[in-house]
């Protein structure tokens, strides 16, 4: 029996440590630890609720925008604000843009190197690579000259030390792609790096910048006026149209074909990494107002034990549904370590009891992470692209069923193949394809509203704190690229009285709960074979298939100031 430690887990957002116990070449137990904490919830207390989007947006700069959206929705929910339809459309456009950008970047820059052997791409025949690429994509850039140029770049790069690609697990027996597929993927890695900075210009048009574009309680900050040079006008809309068209080409002619091509060589990974059988989705893309749950493009609900005959409703206000536990987290609860608390009653006293750094292992420590452990009706849940596809599939959303079916058909695998590491990665591609289609739809609707001059982007009726009740509470739900995200807020006398976030990677990457049930990262590693203990690429494949975001997951605080070293900046 051996204990493998992977720390830092790279090509993710944040600081993650995985410890896995391996026996006879197979993982039999696993521990997922978040090792960084910032205290943002404490910092939010006493501030203007209208500022909270900007503060919480700084939770994550990779899935930038999702916390801003959850925050403005939470405040609007608390204060009873309905945003104008045009503002809702712009929010949808920004979210769909993020889905597409984030998933492409995840595949090429964060995940691909677990499957693609860069050094092996040097052995490829560029002509064969071009022929192969032409067999599954009509992208006109895929020529022999193009692939040969990329190969020359890598050769030079390899000669000079490989930089960011140094010390990868190159040559590991788990890499199965032919040299030509490796070369295609590496070429598109470089192209995706150039492309991703283009598509986010959509965020800059509507939000002024990316990362961290601007949001606004009651709508969006930009104004639309086709007769004004300083507003979002026809020139700006033309720019957005061009960027959407470019994105459509890249997603459908490069990203989706590449995912399918790579996946077709790794079908054995449909056997591993399945993990939990429960799936959570808050749903996303409101089309008739955020409060209309039946208008969401992605359905809201829960699936238990892979029973697709029933989609359970989710109520984030019910104190018995979503609760957070700290049995294995570095916190104390007044009610003891086995209690579970709803976020509105959240209580989070930071208390590190792990080994004194520097340390080699967290083995033998009851508590081992700065992530708390969320549960839905005491069930561990997986969340993310796979979960939301499955929930919408079970809820009978036709467009989702069609896209999922098409990918299963192309890979020639049954639905069950989705419950795996491979399935999670394929689901993300389907997710991006759907978002791409909806992005075009939302933009066409926006143009329609510009035409009829229904372009109000801000509802200022409850902007002034003098119009607010003395006390209010709200919840904002977002189905972010990485999964279900929610913010809970309590407002008192115009200030934030309490603020709690439960984010996708907290669901997926948390430690065990009080009943010793594992969360998704840990559960999905059980049963996975590891060929070489000192090069555990298999662990990275499964963990990366979730697209972890650790800065999002750990943001807790100590209201009593215990165990905290306070620094005053007065």
């Amino acid at each position: 029996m051996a204990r493998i430690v992977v720390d830092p887990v790279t090509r993710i957002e944040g600081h993650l440590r995985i410890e896995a116990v391996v026996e006879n070449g197979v993982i039999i137990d696993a521990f997922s630890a978040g090792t960084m904490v910032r205290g943002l919830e404490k910092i939010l207390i006493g501030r203007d609720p209208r500022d909270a989007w900007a503060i919480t947006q700084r939770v994550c700069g990779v899935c930038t925008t999702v916390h801003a959206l959850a925050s403005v929705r939470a405040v609007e929910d608390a204060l009873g604000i309905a945003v104008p339809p045009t503002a809702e459309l712009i929010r949808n456009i920004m979210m769909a843009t993020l889905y597409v950008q984030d998933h492409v970047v995840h595949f090429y820059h964060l995940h691909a190197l677990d499957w693609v052997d860069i050094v092996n791409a040097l052995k490829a025949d560029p002509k064969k690579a071009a022929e192969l690429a032409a067999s599954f994509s009509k992208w006109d850039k895929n020529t022999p000259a193009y692939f040969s140029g990329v190969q020359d770049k890598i050769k030079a790069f390899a000669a000079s030390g490989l930089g960011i690609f140094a010390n990868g697990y190159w040559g590991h027996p788990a890499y199965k792609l032919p040299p030509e597929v490796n070369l295609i993927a590496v070429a598109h890695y470089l192209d995706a790096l150039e492309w991703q900075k283009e598509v986010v210009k959509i965020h800059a048009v509507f939000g002024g910048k990316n990362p961290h574009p601007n949001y606004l309680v009651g709508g969006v900050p930009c104004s639309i006026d086709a007769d004004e040079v300083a507003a979002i006008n026809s020139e700006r809309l033309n720019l957005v149209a061009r960027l959407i068209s470019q994105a459509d080409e890249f997603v459908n002619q490069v990203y989706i074909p590449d995912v399918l091509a790579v996946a077709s060589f790794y079908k054995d990974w449909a056997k591993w990494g399945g993990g939990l059988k429960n799936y959570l989705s808050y749903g996303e893309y409101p089309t008739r107002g955020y409060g209309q749950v039946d208008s969401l493009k992605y359905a809201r609900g829960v699936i238990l034990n892979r029973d697709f005959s029933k989609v359970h409703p989710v109520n984030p206000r019910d104190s018995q549904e979503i609760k957070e536990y700290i049995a294995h987290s570095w916190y104390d609860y007044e009610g003891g370590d086995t209690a579970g608390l709803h976020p509105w009653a959240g209580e989070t006293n930071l208390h590190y009891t792990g080994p004194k750094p520097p340390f080699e292992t967290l083995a033998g420590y009851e508590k081992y992470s700065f992530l708390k452990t969320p549960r839905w009706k005491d069930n561990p849940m997986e969340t993310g692209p796979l979960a939301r596809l499955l929930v919408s599939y079970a809820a009978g959303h036709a467009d989702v069923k069609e896209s999922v079916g098409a990918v299963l058909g192309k890979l020639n695998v049954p639905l069950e193949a989705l419950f795996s590491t491979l399935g999670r990665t394929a689901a993300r591609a389907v997710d991006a394809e759907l978002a791409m289609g909806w992005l075009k739809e939302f933009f066409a609707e926006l143009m329609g509203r510009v035409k009829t001059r229904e372009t109000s982007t801000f509802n200022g009726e409850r902007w002034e704190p003098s119009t607010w009740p003395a006390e209010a509470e709200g919840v904002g739900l977002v189905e972010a690229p990485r999964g279900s995200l929610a913010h809970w807020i309590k407002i008192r006398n115009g200030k934030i009285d309490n603020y709690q976030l439960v984010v996708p990677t907290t669901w997926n990457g948390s430690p065990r709960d009080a009943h010793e049930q594992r969360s998704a990262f840990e559960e999905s590693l059980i049963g996975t074979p590891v060929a070489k203990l000192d090069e555990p690429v298999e662990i990275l494949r499964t963990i990366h298939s979730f697209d972890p975001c650790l800065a999002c997951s750990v943001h807790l605080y100590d209201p009593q100031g215990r165990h905290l070293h306070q620094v005053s900046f007065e």
Partner: protein
Amino acid sequence: MGLSIWQSMQQKGYSRRDFLQFCTAAAVMAGLDRSAGAQVASVFEKKEKPAVIWMHFQECTCCSESFIRASHPIVVDALLDVLSLNYTETLMAASGFQAEKSLNDTIQNNKGKYIVLVEGAVPTGANGVYCMIGGKTAESILQTVAKDAAVIVAWGSCASNGCVQAAKPNPTGATPIHKLVNKPVINVPGCPPIADVMMAVVTHLLVLGQIPALDSLGRPKEFYGRRVHDTCYRRANYDAGLFVESFDDENARKGYCLYKVGCRGPVTYNACSVVKWNEGTSYPVQSGHGCIGCSEAGFWDNGPFYQHLASFPGFGIESTADSIGLSVGTATVAGVAVHAVVTNIRKHKVIAEVHAEDSPDLDEPIEKK
């Protein structure tokens, strides 16, 4: 190892013409005159790739994300090759033991010569346990990496001034890098910094092999020497007393000044209104939202964001950060009150002529903390 940038670009298939274009772009981005391209070319031809280590501590990765948005394609492309970026947790292939090996090898093989780029603040509370990588505290890793570094760049507001986790009450003792290391630190604040500014700072180090001219806060003067307000295209509306009264009102659609709905542009030193974001696509004010002052120390505690500044120093656009000292938020310093009075008189004259009823509260006494 040991290839010059020109040799490495040759191997990548770039022509001499491409190379000279790159050098000119690099020179322009580094704030040099276009004619400096030839001088730059000679430096690149001789210089070996410097090893670069990019550390992540208490951060949200927005700086890394911003960095890969840099707009000049050949610069981004060259980045993967020109810089020997040996350690960056966001993008590197290796994880765990192999990642730590990359870090240690880089330090051992390049003592006194490598560049450290730091993204994130370092928590000093509870003996550093609030940020640990590989079982070590961020603080101990920072000290190890900084010891033999040639220069340290603090990316973004987290590393430069603590940013969001250092906002009151700073629960984890988040501390900016320059307070922890005994080395020159270039502060490149912003949440995040503008991509092209980040690239320009790196290019500056590469091209001249020197730390760029810094102001008293350790920021490159070329990008942090002017207030967003003074270079804002809506400044004329401010001077004329034309203001947005509420988001998306008629004045918002006309692009009037956002001062009244909350804009920290008058007290924020950054290049947003000149360089702009995402290849010059926009910047916050252009898209209808006030500047939140994200490059200023303590900006999170300078809110609320939608409350307009009671008043601010009215010094002219010729002033720089150094000549007026630290920036200020809703409070101002007495020393600049004279400037404020003079400017206000001048402004009031203009405002009275143009739009008397819409003038901001320039008559209010300057607040003191």
